[in-house]
């Protein structure tokens, strides 16, 4: 009887593992099958021209550049906030401090908040400050979204750094600045992984940019202009009745997927390489 139970579960376990693997492969396959035919050099190097949405020329460069701008500035802002916060939590506050525990709880909760809430809130902020849907609006929303992701990711690494390292460095007569350099080097793999993770999360998210970044056919030249983004490009074009346009949505989906996959591999590669120096 015992044996039977074990056999049944073993079968179920292997089954579910295979199922999950197959689903991933199937997803990638479908995206490639639909997107590859429409993927051309024109597609990624041109912005939509006049009849784009009726099936004529142009490409999705507006969306690609828009997404790149959005994520670049968001990551910079998030880094400026996350790194000091993590350093403070781990090296200034004592381990058991209540503020640290409360802060971590808050960040965990923020991590779980859906992106549409950030989008809605970003929208509220924009209205409050009188901003139009723009690059800046999108950046604000995305930054809010990825700050908890970044903090959590870097914190995971920072927690592992033993306090002794800080003390040992200080006792050797290092200045505060030099101590920070030592710690920063230890944190580097964590920070790069965090950046890559955040890019992954932020670049593919539609709900944050839906209200805040607008949509346009051109590449923004200033922060106050609206901007296109890859997720929205996919979403809007998919709902078009013109088949040509739908195909472009698939192409955009493929571009986005390729970007994400590259980021994923890069994240694993760097975290493994940079861990060589770690304690």
């Amino acid at each position: 009887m015992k044996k039977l139970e074990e056999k049944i579960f073993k079968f179920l376990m292997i089954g579910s593992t295979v199922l999950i693997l197959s689903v991933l492969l199937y997803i990638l396959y479908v995206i490639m099958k639909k997107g590859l035919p429409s993927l051309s050099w024109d597609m990624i190097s041109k912005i939509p021209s006049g009849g784009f949405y009726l099936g004529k020329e142009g490409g999705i460069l507006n969306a690609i550049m828009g997404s790149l701008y959005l994520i670049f500035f968001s990551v910079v802002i998030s880094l400026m906030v996350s790194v000091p916060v993590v350093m403070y939590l781990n090296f200034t506050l004592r381990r058991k401090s209540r503020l640290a525990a409360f802060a971590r709880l808050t960040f965990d909760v923020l991590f779980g908040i859906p992106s549409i809430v950030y989008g809605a809130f970003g929208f509220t902020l924009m209205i409050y400050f009188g901003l139009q849907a723009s690059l800046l609006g999108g950046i604000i929303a995305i930054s809010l979204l990825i700050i908890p992701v970044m903090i959590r990711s870097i914190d995971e690494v920072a927690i592992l750094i033993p306090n002794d390292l800080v003390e040992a460095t200080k006792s050797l007569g290092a200045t505060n600045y030099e101590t920070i350099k030592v710690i920063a080097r230890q944190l580097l793999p964590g920070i790069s992984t965090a950046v890559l993770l955040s890019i992954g999360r932020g670049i593919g998210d539609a709900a944050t940019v839906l209200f805040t970044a607008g949509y346009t056919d051109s590449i923004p030249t200033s922060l106050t202009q609206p901007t296109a983004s890859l997720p929205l490009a996919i979403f809007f074009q998919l709902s078009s009745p013109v088949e040509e346009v739908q195909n472009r949505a698939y192409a955009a989906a493929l571009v986005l997927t390729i970007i994400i996959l590259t980021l994923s591999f890069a994240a694993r590669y760097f975290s493994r390489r940079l861990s060589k120096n770690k304690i």
Partner: protein
Amino acid sequence: MLLATILSIFILFLIGGGLLAKSLPIMQEKSLWTLLTTSNWRPFKGDFGFASYILSTLYVTAIAIAIALPLSLLTSIYIIEYASPRILRAFTAVVDLLSGIPPVIYGVWGTLTIVPFISEKLAPHFVEFSTGYSVLAGGIVLAIMITPLIISILIEVFSAVPKEMREASLSLGATKWQTVKKVVIRKSIPGIVAATVLAISRAFGETIAVLMVCGNFTDLPKSIFDACYPIPALIANNYGEMMSVPRYESALMFAAFLLFFIIVLFNVISRLVLIQIDKRYQL
């Protein structure tokens, strides 16, 4: 640095407060009870009943968890306890990849594969007609989205069970499966709870993927093959029109606040539950 920390913590309250402030107009106009339990949604007439949206969200989330949790548990147990280290490494890579895929891609894939499948192959066995854009489609797509999340947490959690504990059980003559059932899983309960909470939060609030496959139809779904309209989809679809009708903006902000509130509450409660489990059982 202290300033940055305080500011970051403040974000949570800022969001909550901001959304609440924006929802006040509609909350003042209609009672909370009306808002939450009626399903009349006619913004141009001033009727805002969220009930069917709330229910849609619950249905879709419930289906997603019902599918994802058992699958994730089974897979994680297999990967950690039974598979070779090489498979573990390969599978972790797969899971990382899956969890990085943006929701919109799942939405695209869902419309291409799941929706037709339901409409043509599955639903005809059960109902007369279904477009395929349905509660079930939303649930399935969501399930696929949250599975990598649950698995990656569970893999960490199961790996954290000390080897000695497993060996202690095996040395008593237990089989591997008995050890898994009675020792590994038991020791991992806090982690499993935490993973589930995070997954539910993610499923609850997922917008674009569900939006693309759920049908966006306001009437209360009568079966899982009917279209539905979860709250995030409501907000996303109507933000463009919300300035045109009085109270519409406030209603949508209320919807956002609902999401926010439920998820925060859920997170806090589960955190408290975990602390209690830790205190009492000291697993």
